[in-house]
């Protein structure tokens, strides 16, 4: 393996800046790495070697000409295949968009291009980002590089596997109920869900619009912060985009000091359902943060335990509405019903949606259609919206006592492919720790905290902060990263 692929993005950026390596060399090294290992990982649904190398050559030429370039110029990146990219297919992991090439770039992609990051390709995901294991991809699951018999987490499992296995130093993911942080935990990398509205959703295929957020995935907290600053900031094309300065996340990641920081440990995220090996690593991390001068406070957020129930009403309701746009008329698949020589548009729609959507997508659309039906709306969707308020109130109360909250990111380490496939509810319960942040719109980060002693697999710790205080995540995360070094994958375990 070329050493270039193992560099942190910040170190590669420094070497690019001082001329000791070119972006073409770094990008080619990633392409070679993808060719060597992706047959086992299935992290990429599409690789654009030509486009990535063209961007790299352009950056190298501009640098050689003495142009002043953004920090990450020339550092290659992988992009979750839920995010529109001109010139590369965007499938959302679904058959209904197989081969679709978007006519416009997502704002985050426009910003990557402006900052000179070569885009290596598009990464695998659960179909329309619906899942916690990547097994719901229509193109086969991505696999965990720590054990290719196991799931990489989801839904941004391809991005997580790619970064963990040194196929890319950076990736973009999206997080609706934990889809950046949980795969980060499963694969031992850093992943951040920014404050809702902190990063533009324009050109990102919508799953649940009041919950979705794009964020960075990387092998260090500083790398994630550098990418965060590239993609964040107000976008007039997203009506929910926050028109305020981007929090100083890079400065916070360089600081990494928890002395005097009040860290709240969430009482509800422990005990039943939490793997003992996860709990032990987490308890050690808490002890190390205390040794480093943090003030550890146990806090109670009683409504958090109802997050899954509220989420599995709010999210499917929004899904059932958002996915109505896949109607076989303007883009994507069109299937005519069997034995009907002259079907109506409505019959074509129904046949296409049956053929084009996978089981989990159908399950959520039906669930959401039910939750929004007349006669059930108040009992289900209405109640879920009120629980959402209770969860937001728990956050407000907690952040009056502490600066950040800390918990395990996921209750278990990565499970075997197929282990939870027949029990959708068991899969949903894996998101217990991550969902409250999406419901309330607050930011969260996953930081690797070692390998579990019972499974030998990565464990993640999650910090949560108040809305628009993303810099607190990076400060606490960088401190934790120094106290508890991230596990380093030697080679993909087949």
């Amino acid at each position: 393996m070329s050493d270039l692929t193992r560099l942190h993005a910040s170190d590669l950026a420094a070497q690019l800046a001082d001329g000791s390596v070119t972006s073409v060399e770094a990008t080619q090294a990633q392409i070679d790495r993808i060719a060597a290992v992706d047959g086992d990982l299935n992290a990429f649904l599409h690789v654009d070697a030509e486009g990535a190398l063209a961007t790299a050559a352009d950056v190298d030429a501009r640098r050689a000409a003495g142009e002043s370039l953004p920090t990450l110029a020339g550092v290659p990146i992988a992009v979750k295949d839920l995010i529109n990219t001109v010139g590369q297919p965007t499938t959302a992991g679904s058959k209904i968009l197989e081969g679709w090439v978007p006519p416009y770039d997502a704002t985050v992609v426009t910003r990557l291009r402006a900052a000179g990051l070569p885009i290596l390709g598009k990464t695998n995901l659960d179909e329309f980002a619906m899942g916690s294991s990547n097994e719901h991809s229509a193109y086969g699951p991505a696999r965990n590089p720590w054990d290719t018999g196991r799931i990489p987490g989801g839904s941004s499992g391809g991005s997580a596997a790619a970064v963990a296995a040194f196929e890319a130093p950076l990736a973009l993911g999206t997080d609706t109920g934990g889809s950046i942080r949980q795969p980060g935990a499963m694969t031992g990398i850093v992943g951040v869900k920014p404050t809702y509205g902190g990063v533009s959703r324009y050109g990102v295929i919508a799953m649940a619009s009041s919950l979705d957020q794009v964020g960075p995935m990387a092998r260090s907290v500083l790398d994630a912060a550098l990418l965060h600053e590239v993609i964040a900031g107000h976008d007039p094309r997203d009506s929910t985009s926050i028109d305020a300065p981007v929090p100083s996340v890079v400065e916070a990641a360089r600081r990494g000091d928890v002395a005097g920081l009040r860290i709240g440990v969430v009482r509800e995220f422990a005990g039943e359902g939490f793997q003992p090996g996860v709990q032990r690593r987490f308890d050690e991390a808490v002890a190390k943060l205390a040794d480093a001068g943090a003030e550890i406070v146990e806090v109670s957020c009683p409504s958090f335990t109802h997050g899954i129930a509220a989420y599995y009403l709010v999210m499917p309701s929004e899904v059932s509405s958002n996915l109505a746009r896949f109607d076989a008329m303007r883009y994507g698949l069109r299937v005519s019903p069997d034995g009907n020589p002259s079907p109506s548009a409505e019959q074509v729609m129904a046949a296409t949606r049956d053929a084009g959507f996978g089981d989990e997508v159908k399950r959520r659309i039906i669930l959401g259609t039910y939750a929004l039906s007349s006669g059930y709306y108040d009992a289900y969707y209405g109640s879920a919206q009120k629980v959402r308020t209770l969860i937001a109130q728990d956050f407000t109360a907690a952040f009056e006592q502490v600066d950040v909250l800390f918990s395990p990111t996921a209750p278990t380490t990565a499970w075997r492919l197929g282990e939870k496939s027949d029990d959708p509810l068991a899969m949903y319960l894996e998101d217990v720790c991550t969902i409250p942040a999406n419901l309330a719109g607050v930011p969260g980060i996953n930081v690797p905290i070692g390998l579990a002693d019972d499974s030998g697999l990565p464990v993640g710790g999650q910090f949560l902060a108040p809305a628009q205080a993303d810099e607190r995540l990076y400060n606490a995360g960088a401190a934790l990263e120094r106290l508890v070094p991230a596990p380093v994958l030697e080679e993909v375990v087949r």
Partner: protein
Amino acid sequence: MSSPLSREDVAHLASLARISLSEDELDRLGAELPAILDHVAAVQGVVESAGADVAPMSHPVPITNVFRADEPSPGLSRDEALSGAPASEEDRFLVPKILGEEA
């Protein structure tokens, strides 16, 4: 509120959602959805025990409608807009019939 979802209910919801579910899919969803609904129905008890009026929250940040300045700006070209269409003709989307034969 316990609301067992019959196979007929699932078929009705599927028709509302414009998905022609197969017989097998109707069987499977009919078996899976009650367990999920059982779990999520907990929100009703939570809200009841919260007592005082809890305001519903549809969105994490206060939202106001956002208008851009009313000035012309370039959008997608016709070719770009049609580039992903399953079928097009004479610079238009070509779609199956949307009205009955007798209409």
